[in-house]
C-alpha cells in the first residue's frame, strides 16, 4: 500500500476510521510498532507542513514556516571573544570604580576561567577608550570603531547576550552549532538543509577566514555539517589560486577541454544507466554539470578586479589584499548579490588576556572600516533590506583586569556572563540598543539574550520556526536551538 492510498483510506470520519483501522500487525510491542524510521516522512512526530514557499530550491522544509524577512545572512564572526567594554557596552560607572576590587555582590557565583584562579586581586577596569554618541539614535560607540559609529543607525546592538561556555572551542561551537560539543551542524548547515539554495551554481554556505594578531586557532568543525548530509557543510572560499578546494582544472586542461570531457562522461554515464537503470546515475550526471558551473561561477564571484575605486575606498585599502578581513567583507557582498544563503566570515585574534589596549585597537583597525563599508555597500545596493548582517564573538570579557592593571595596560579574561553582538539589515530594527548589563558590565541586568535565543531569532528572520526545523539522528530530533530558545520579538522590525 503506498502512501497515497493510505492517506485516502484514513480520510474518513472518526467512527468509520475506528472500524476500518485494521492493518496487518501482529501483537508486537507498541513501542516497536511506533518505532519511526530515520526518514522525516515517516516520523511519528512529524513537523507541521511548512506553509509558504519562499525558501530556496531543495530545502527540507520545502519553503519557510512563515514569510521570511531575510533571504540570506552575512555573519561576521569575531573569534576570540571581543571585549564588550571597549566596544559597545559603555560603562561610565566603571570610571569611579576603576582600580577597585570588584564587589562580591557583583561577582556572585558566575564562574571564571582557570586562568585567574591564582589572582588574589580583581581590580575593575574602565575602558581606556572613550565613547561618544552617534547617529540619530544617539547610540554610544567606542572611539576604536569610528566607521562602525557612522552606520550605527543601521545596527541593532544587543548588549545582553550571554552564553554557557567559558573556553574558546566549546564557546565557538555553542554559538555556531548550538552545542558545546563539536560534531553538530552549524547554523549555515541548518539553513542549507532547511531552505535549500537560491543559486545552484554556487555553494549556499560559504566560509572565509582571516586573522588578526595572536589568533587562537579555529576548528573546521565550526562550519561542519555534523549529522546532516555532507553537502550542507560550509565550503571554504580561500584567497589564492584555488578559491574552492579542487576547483581548478589540472594543468594543461582548458575550459573547453573540460567541457568536452564532461560530455563524454555524461555519455558514458547514460550508457551505464541503460545497463543498471539506477536513478543514482542520473543524479551523478547532474552533479557533474553543477560542478562545471561552479568552476566558472566561483572564480567569477570572487574576482574583485572590476570593483571600482570608490568601493575600495569604502572597505579600506586592506580590501585589495586577498585573505584580509576587508577583502572577505567585499567578497561577502559579492556573494550576497549572487544569493548565497549563508556567508560566514571568521576573523581571529580578539583574545586579549593581556595587553588589551593595544591588541583590541589593532583588531579594530583591521575590521572596523570594512565592517561599516559592508553595511553601507549593502544598503546602497538595496541588499540590506533582505540581508541580515550579524557581528559578534563567542563570549565577552571580564570587567576586572586579568593580570596587572597599570596606567596604560591591562587584560581581560573570558566572560560568558554578558557580551555584545549586533545585527543589521533585514527584519531587525536599526538604531536600536537591546538589553542592558549592570553597572559593571558583569551581569545581564535586563532582557538577557541567550545564545539559543539569538539562534531562534536568526532563524525566525529567515522564516523558520526554530522548533520545527529538526533532524532525526540516533533516535532524537535535533535542533539548532537544542530544546531552548525564544525569538527576541522586540528587535524585529
Amino acid at each position, binding site marked *: 500500500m503506498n502512501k497515497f492510498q*493510505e492517506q485516502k*483510506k*484514513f480520510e474518513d470520519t472518526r467512527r468509520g476510521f475506528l472500524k476500518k*483501522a485494521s*492493518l496487518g*500487525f501482529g501483537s*508486537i510491542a*507498541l513501542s*516497536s*510498532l511506533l*518505532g519511526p*524510521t*530515520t526518514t522525516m516522512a515517516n516520523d511519528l*512526530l*512529524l*513537523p*507541521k507542513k511548512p506553509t509558504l514557499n519562499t525558501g530556496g530550491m531543495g530545502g527540507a522544509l520545502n519553503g519557510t514556516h512563515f514569510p521570511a524577512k531575510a533571504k540570506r545572512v552575512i555573519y561576521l564572526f569575531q573569534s576570540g571573544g571581543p571585549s564588550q567594554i571597549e566596544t559597545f557596552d559603555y560603562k561610565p560607572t566603571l570610571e569611579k570604580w576603576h582600580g577597585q576590587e570588584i564587589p562580591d555582590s557583583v561577582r556572585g557565583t558566575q564562574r571564571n*576561567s*582557570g*586562568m*585567574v*584562579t*591564582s*589572582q*588574589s586581586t580583581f581590580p575593575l577596569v574602565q575602558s581606556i577608550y572613550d565613547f561618544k554618541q552617534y547617529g540619530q539614535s544617539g547610540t554610544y560607540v567606542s572611539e576604536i570603531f569610528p566607521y562602525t559609529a557612522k552606520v550605527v543607525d543601521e545596527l541593532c546592538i544587543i548588549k545582553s547576550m550571554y552564553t554557557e561556555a567559558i573556553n574558546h*572551542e566549546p564557546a565557538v561551537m555553542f554559538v555556531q552549532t548550538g552545542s558545546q*560539543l*563539536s560534531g553538530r551542524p552549524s547554523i549555515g548547515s541548518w539553513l542549507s538543509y532547511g531552505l535549500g539554495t537560491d543559486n545552484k551554481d554556487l555553494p549556499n554556505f560559504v566560509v572565509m577566514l582571516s586573522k588578526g594578531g595572536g*589568533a587562537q*586557532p579555529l*576548528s573546521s568543525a565550526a562550519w*561542519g555539517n*555534523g549529522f546532516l548530509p*555532507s553537502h550542507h*557543510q560550509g565550503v*571554504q572560499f*580561500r584567497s589564492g589560486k584555488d578559491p*574552492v*578546494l*579542487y576547483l581548478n*582544472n*589540472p*594543468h*594543461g*586542461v582548458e575550459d573547453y577541454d573540460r567541457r568536452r*570531457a564532461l560530455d*563524454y*562522461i555524461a555519455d*558514458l554515464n547514460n550508457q*551505464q544507466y541503460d545497463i*543498471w*537503470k*539506477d*536513478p*543514482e546515475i542520473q543524479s551523478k550526471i547532474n552533479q*557533474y554539470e553543477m*560542478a562545471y558551473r*561552479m568552476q566558472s561561477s566561483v572564480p567569477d564571484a570572487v574576482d574583485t578586479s572590476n570593483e571600482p575605486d570608490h568601493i575600495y575606498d569604502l572597505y579600506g585599502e586592506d580590501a585589495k589584499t586577498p585573505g584580509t578581513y576587508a577583502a572577505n567583507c567585499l567578497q561577502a557582498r559579492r556573494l550576497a548579490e549572487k544569493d548565497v544563503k549563508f556567508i560566514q566570515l571568521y576573523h581571529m585574534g580578539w583574545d586579549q588576556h593581556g595587553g588589551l589596549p593595544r591588541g583590541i585597537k589593532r583588531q579594530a583597525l583591521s575590521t572596523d572600516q570594512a565592517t561599516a563599508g559592508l553595511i553601507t555597500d549593502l544598503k546602497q545596493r538595496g541588499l540590506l533590506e533582505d540581508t541580515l548582517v550579524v557581528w559578534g564573538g563567542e563570549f565577552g570579557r571580564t570587567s576586572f583586569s586579568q593580570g596587572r592593571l597599570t596606567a596604560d595596560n591591562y587584560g581581560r579574561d573570558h566572560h560568558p556572563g554578558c557580551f555584545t553582538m549586533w545585527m543589521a539589515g533585514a527584519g531587525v530594527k536599526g538604531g536600536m540598543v537591546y538589553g542592558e548589563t549592570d553597572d559593571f558590565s558583569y551581569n545581564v541586568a535586563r532582557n538577557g539574550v541567550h545564545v539559543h535565543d539569538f539562534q531562534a531569532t536568526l532563524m525566525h528572520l529567515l522564516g523558520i520556526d526554530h522548533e*520545527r526545523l529538526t533532524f532525526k539522528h540516533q*533516535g532524537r530530533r535535533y535542533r539548532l536551538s537544542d530544546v531552548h530558545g525564544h525569538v527576541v520579538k522586540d528587535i524585529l522590525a
Partner: protein
Amino acid sequence: MDIEENAYEAIKGSGKHPIVPGKPEKSEIVTRILSDDSEIKMPPPEFKVELTKKEIAVLTKWVEQGAEYKPHWSFIKPKKVELPEIASKDWAKNEVDRFIAAKLEFNKLSPSKRASKENLIRRLNFDLIGLPPTLQQISDFVSDTSEDAYEKVVNRLLASPAYGERMATEWMDVARYADSDGYLDDKHRDFSPYRDWVITAFNENMPYDQFTTWQLAGDLIKKPTQESILATAFNRLHKKNSEAGIVYEEYRVEYVADRALSVGKAFLGLSVECARCHDHKYDPISQKDHYELFAFFNSTNEIGTPVYGPGQVPGPSLLLTNDEQDKVLEYIDANIDTAKKELVSVRTKKPEEVAQLAANTQKLESVLQKALKKGLVADLDFNHLSKKDEKTYHTSTNAGNPSLTVVREPEIGQGLNSKAIFVNDYTTVTLPKKVGWFDQSDPFTVSLAVYPEIVYEEASLFTHCEETRQGLKGYSMHLENNQLKFIIARSWPSNAIQVKTKNPIPVKEWSTITVSYDGLAKAKGVKMYLNGKEIPLAIEIDNLYKSILFKKNAHNYAFDGFTLGVRDKFMLFKDGGLDKLTIYERELSALEVLYKQSPKEALELVTASAKQELLYDFYHTSIDSQVEKTRKKLHELRQERLAELEPIKEIMVLGDLPEPRPTFVLDRGMYDAPTDGVRPDIPEAVMPWKEGLPRNRLGLTKWLFDTENPLTSRVFVNRLWQMHFGRGLVETSDDFGNQGSLPSHPELLDWLAVEFMESDWDIKKIHKLIVMSSTYQQSSEVKPELLEIDSDNILLARGPSMRMTAEMVRDNALAISGLLSSKIGGPSAYPYQPEGLWDEISNKSWRYKYKQEPGEGLYRRSLYTIWKRTSAPPSMQIFDVGDRSVCTVKRRQTSTPLQALVLLNDPQFIEASYILAENIIEETGADSEEQLKKAFQFSTGRLPKDKELTVLKKFLADELARFMERKKDAIAYLDMGETKIKHTSDPIKVASLATVINGIMNTSEGYTIR
C-alpha cells in the same frame, strides 16, 4: 502510561481510563489522538508535532488487540527460529537465503539473477579488502569453472592482509581514531600503534569477544600483555582539551562520558548520552543508568588536560618496547640490581675511625663543616639585594655558580636573621639557569626557610619544573593546606613520584624545610626534614621512569629554571616569606641536615652513643669513597637506562587508580553538581547484572558477552551486514532503541546473532556466510517495477550497490595505477593535500605544518592518512568519511558537485590516471582499441560494450588531437604529481589516454560498487 498498570488504571478525577484493552472507543488515548479540540488533543498543538494517520491507526489497532505491553524487541534475547520453508529451494544457498526468500515470496517477488562474475569479484574485493581485483584475478576467476571458484576467491580475500586494513577502516570510525587531540590547540598525538593492533587483530580473526574485551579491559584480564593493554587505547581516543584556563575536572568528566557513550553506541547500539542530563526520553535508560555505566570508566588515573611537549604522553600510558629493547632494559636492570646490592653491602661497613669521631666533637664538627661544602651549588640568604631598576634586584649566591639570582618586585621584610623576601602578586625569584638542573638519576637536596602567612589551599614554595600541561616535568615543592608536597615528575600524575607530609607546617612562623633525594627514582628515596628533623611522609605516587630534564621544543614554554614562591603564575605563596635557600647536588645525610639547622643538637645527638647509626649514615652518605664509587656506577647505569628509555614510544591506555574514584549522578550533567553516589552497573532493562562478576570494566565485558545479552551480537552482525549491503537489517545501526528502525528481517538478524555467538564470535565466518549467500550474489541491476515497490532495496530482490567509501575511492585509483604502497601499519602519512589548510586556522608559532611526504608516503592506503581533528582530510570529508569527534558506526552517503571536482582535479587522481595510462601503453603497445579496453577494465572491472567502446574511441581521438596541437599542455598535465612518466614515454599519447581514464574513473561505475 509508560507502565502497563498505570495505563489501565482509571485517571483520578475524571474516572476515565487511558487504555481499556480491546476497547479503543473507551480508551482516552484514542479519543485524544483523534480529537480536533485543542483542549484535549494529543499531542497538544503547542508541541508542534502531529501524528500521522498511520501512527494513529497503529495505536488504535494496538488498543483494539489488547494493548499488550512487551519489552522492546531488541531487549529480548535472540533465538534461532526454524528456517522458513520456501518455494525457491534451488536458489537458496544457505540460511541467509531462506529468510530473504521467504520474505520475497511473501511479497510475491523473485530474486534477481546472479551478477556477472566480473561484477562479483569486484564487489567481493571492495567489500572484503577495500581494493579492486587485478585484471589477472578477474580473468582467473572468470575462467575458473570449478564449483568452488567463488568460494576460493572469498577464502583468498578473507586471508589477505588487506582484509585487516579494510576492517580497521570501519573500526576507526567506531574508535573515533585521530592523530590529534581536538579542541582549541589540537595537539598531535600518535595513536598508530593502536591502529596497527586493530589491523592485526582482524587479520588474525581475533574473536569479537576477545577483541572487545581487550579494548575495554585489556589491562584487567588475567596475565595482561603489552598487546592487550595497547588495545585499551580505544577508550583514550576521545577528544582531549589542553586549552589554558579550562577546569580540568570539567573535561575529565567529558572524557569519561565519551567512554560511556562509545561503549553504548559501539557495542550496545544505544545512545546512552541522552541520559546524561536527564532520564532517556524514549529508551529505558535512566540518568542513574548513565552514571552507573560512566562509573566503570571513571577511575582512570588522569587529569582533564592532556600533557604535551617533547616526549610527553598523558598517563596512564604504555611503553611500547620491542623485544630487543626489553632485553637491553632487562640487562641494565640486572646490573642496577647488582649495584644496588653492592651499595647496601658497602654501607654495612663500620670503620673504627668513624666510631672514634663520636668521641671527638671538635674533629666531628670540622668533618661535618667540610662535608657541608661538598656539592653545594647554591646558597642564598637574600640579605644583600642590589637594586637594578625600579622593580628588579640582584643577589648573588655564596656558592657554586657565579651568575646572579634575579628578584623582581619583592616585599622585603624581616627573615630568619636579617632580610627575607615576601611574595606579592608580582614577585618572582629566579635562580641562574642550570642551577638545580637535576635529572631523576641525580641525588640532590634542597633546603628553604619559609614563612606561611596563612593556611594555603595550594601555594608553591620552589619549582624546577614545567607547568601542569607539560606534566610538571622536573621537581617541585608546594604547600597543600600547609602540608608539604614534593613531586618529581616526567608526566604527572602518572609518570611521577609524589610524597606528602602528614602534618601542616605552622602559620606565621619560620620553618626550614629540607628535601633530599637519593637519585634512584623511588619515593622511598625522598626524605623531608622540618627544622632539621626528619618528618614522616605518605607516598602518593611512585611510578617515575623517564627523564625529567627540561628540553625545549616548539610546544613548551614557561620553564624559568629554579624559582620560588609561584608555579607557572599559579599557586602563589601570597604574603609568605622566603629565606635561606641551599641546593646540593648530592643527598645530604640526616646528620648534616640537622647540623645545618642546629649544630649543637646534632653533635650532642651523635656523641650520645644511641645515635651512632646517624654517624655511620653520614659517613656512608657523604664521606666513604667506596660508597661514592658504587653510587657513581649506579648513577651511570641509571643514566644509561634513561637514555635507552627516552626514545621508546608510549601510548595512552586505560589504567585505574588503586581505589576507584567515587561516581555520582551529575545534576544536568554538570561536572560540579554531584548528587547521588552510584556504583558501576549496567542498564538493567537490557539485561540484569550477573552476580559474581567483578564490578569493573572486565565485569562489564563479561556482561556484554554473556550469551543472554540481547544486544551485543545483534549490533555487530548488523554492522557486518551493513558493510555488505550498504544498509543494516536494522537500518539505524547506531540505534537499537525505541526510536531506531525495526529490523527488516528480524528472524534473520536473530539467526545471524545466535550463529555469531555459537561460532565463538568468529567474524570471518559471518562475512563468509553473508557473501556466500545467493542474496549477496544477485545482480544489482534495478528493475523498474522494483523501484516502485522497494526503491531502497530493503527486501533484497536485487544485489547491493553503493558508492565507494572515501577511502576506497582513493585507494582504488592508487591500486589500479600500481602506485599503491603495500606497507601495512606505522604512523600516519601525509599524502597530497591542498596547501595552507592547516595554516589558515591558526596563528600559533607552534602550529603544525602539513609536510607532504616524498615517495611512498603519498601512496599509502587512505586508512593511514593523517587525521587532524580541527582540519580533517578535505577530499575524504567530501566523500562522507566518518566524523571522528565521537564514536560513529554509520556513514552518510551523499552526492555533491565537490566530489566531481575532487575526482576531476585532485593531483592524486590525475597522477593515478597518467601512470595507469603509461602502464597500459607499455603493456599493450600501439593498439588504441586494446588500450581503451584495458583502461575501461581497470577502471570499472569489466570490458566496455561496443557502444561504450565507440564513445571511448572518439574521446581518445579528440584528446590526441588536442594534445598533438598543444604538447606543452600534455607536459603540464603529466607534471601534476610527484611521480613522473618515463622520458621514453610519449607525453601526448600518455596524456590523451590519461584524460580518457580520468573520464572513466568519473563515471558512476568508476566509483560505485555494483
